[in-house]
């Protein structure tokens, strides 16, 4: 097998650290292939969800990761058990790489009571906090400080060597929550990896209406954290960058701000035809599909042949179809079995007198 093509190197702001030779080794190839398969699975899952949405099978929004799988998978793969990951809307690939099951994903999108969110929350708002996978709330930027807190807890508990990663879009950088949390991480020198996917748009809003700095990575300077720039549709570059950033964080070098340049290759959600996306951007290098690029590289490098890739694809399709088939057979939640209790402390429930119900805890009706 030929030696791996050196992946395009990432550009580091602040410090230029000369990275090792991961790009040349066979372990790099293995990681690359693993990552590719993760991207593939994510893409196929997304495509399936999109078609279910179009078929009216999914209530609520469906938000895809198309075009962002390389970056996302690199985040998931750079993390280990014990680390924290708070993915955002376009992290199908990273979630799976971090250990989320296809079943969890599908169940949440269908609102299955057997899913981790037990019908209560849906689509991208899923996770398993006790396994380090934090479920996002919708408010952009709000998860970053939550990851900080988890990392502070690790420090309090004397747990060493863990890191926390979370993702955000270009638009999300305009939130006060982003600022407060990144600054908090910097002051506390937490092992946070904050990954910004600059995909040119926040919903329909181009970056020109979102920020005025030369490049989002320049923000790193103002927080005193290390910044990394990476071509977000080049899997090798993403893997190297994230591995580098996570290593730095893990070894006590404080927060790492990773900014990836890429393009959202779908609508904001599946309800959005994204007609507003500039044709020039679609034609630009960073508008190319990361999955295709990775596949090309694999074939070019002869790390696998077309038949093998096809087999992987079929395997992924089967995995997704199986999960969907399982979930579609699952019962819908029964509102009469729902406990309607927002507090963990049972004894502190209010037992609201509900004029619509026959019996009430305290009332007379």
């Amino acid at each position: 097998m030929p030696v791996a093509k050196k992946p395009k190197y990432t550009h580091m702001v602040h410090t230029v650290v000369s990275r090792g030779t991961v790009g040349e080794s066979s372990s790099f190839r293995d990681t690359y292939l693993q990552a590719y398969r993760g991207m593939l699975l994510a893409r196929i899952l997304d495509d399936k969800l999109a078609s279910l949405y179009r078929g009216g099978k999914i209530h609520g929004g469906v938000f895809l990761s198309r075009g962002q799988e390389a970056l996302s998978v690199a985040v998931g793969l750079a993390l280990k058990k014990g680390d924290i990951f708070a993915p955002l809307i376009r992290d199908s690939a990273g979630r799976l790489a971090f250990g989320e099951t296809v079943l969890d994903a599908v169940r949440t999108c269908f609102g299955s009571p057997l899913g981790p969110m037990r019908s209560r929350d849906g689509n991208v708002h899923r996770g398993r906090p006790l396994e380090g996978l934090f479920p996002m709330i919708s408010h952009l930027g709000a998860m970053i400080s939550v990851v900080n807190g988890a990392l502070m807890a690790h420090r309090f508990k004397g747990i060493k060597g863990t890191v926390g990663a979370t993702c955000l879009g270009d638009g999300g950088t305009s939130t006060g929550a982003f600022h407060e949390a990144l600054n908090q991480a910097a002051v506390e020198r937490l092992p946070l990896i904050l990954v910004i996917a600059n995909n040119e748009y926040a919903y329909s809003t181009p970056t020109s209406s979102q920020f005025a700095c030369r490049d989002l990575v320049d923000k790193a300077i103002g927080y005193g954290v290390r910044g990394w720039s990476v071509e977000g549709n080049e899997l090798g570059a993403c893997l190297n960058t994230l591995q580098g950033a996570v290593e730095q964080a893990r070894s006590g070098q404080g927060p790492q701000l990773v900014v990836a340049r890429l393009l959202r290759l779908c609508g904001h959600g599946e309800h959005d035809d994204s007609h507003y996306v500039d044709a020039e951007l679609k034609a630009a290098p960073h508008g190319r599909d990361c999955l295709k690029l990775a596949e090309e590289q694999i074939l070019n490098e002869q790390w696998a042949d077309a038949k093998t890739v096809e087999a992987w694809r079929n395997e992924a399709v089967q995995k997704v179809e199986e999960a969907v088939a399982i979930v579609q057979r699952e019962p819908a939640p029964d509102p009469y079995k729902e406990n309607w209790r927002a507090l963990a402390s049972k004894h502190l429930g209010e037992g609201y007198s509900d004029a619509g119900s026959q019996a009430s805890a305290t009332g007379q009706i």
Partner: protein
Amino acid sequence: MSITYLEAIREAQAKALADDSRVFIYGQDIGSFGGAFKATKNLAAEFPGRVLDAPISEDAMIGAAVGAAIEGLRPIIEIQFADFSTVGFNQIVNQAASLFWRTNVPCPITIRLPGGGTSGGGPFHSQSLEAIYAHYPGLVVMTPATVEDAYSMLLEAVAIDDPVIFFEHKFLYYHLKAEGLPTEALPTGKARIARPGRDMTIVTYSAMVHEALKAAEDLAAEGTEVEVVDLRSVRPMDTDTIMASVARTGRLLCVGEAWPWGGVTAEVLARVSTEGFDLLDAPPQRLNAKDTPVPYHPNLWAAHRPTADSIASAARNLLRL
């Protein structure tokens, strides 16, 4: 011509922009895209430079509106979902709400909050936050239930010299239709008798008006004539109309889509029990959403909020008291 609740909101903004050069609109994706719900469709093209895309910065969006209002303008702010107003909360309740009281300078801003539940919306795209804002002195809180009110109240919101929190209900956006736009309207602060009746008063607002009307129809078939009062604005709240209705019917059920603790229904009950106690032939009752976040799955969601069925059932219980 038939017009939806959502189109009425767009038309009201078009009219406000056309009639008053002090008006501008600022919000995420509202420019050429026309807004997440298309409430500003084509307005950026029709009114160049007056419909501005904002960064994802709710705090700064509201702050800027206050500054523009001080300088004599009449901004309309679109928050993409009411739920996200919590990150602009401080500027609303502390900056905007206190300005007139502190300085004698009015703060005529309109904050459009697409609120309320829809199927599949989930905990963070479904909230009904009227009580949170109505608690603060210095704010007007509107909750239009009809196409006509969506239009005329939004125009009035822009005209009012105070910060108005304008809750437009997402569930009504596309489905609710009217034959045309109104030329006259009740003034803000006046409730509307949505359906007259003699046996019981249901006080409600926003999307729940339609559930209450459906319930009233079912009950009419059973021989009970329910009067439905649509509050229109929950702050100010038209106590007089409520009281007059209760005086006629002797029975009060108050229905809200928001959570129970301290909600609109609690405020209505407090007013009626302090000031209309002797008008009541039975204990007044309230029906609210369940006391949890709003669930994602349609089945749970349908059970979480009041519906025509649960309202009718509550009304039947009340009749037996």
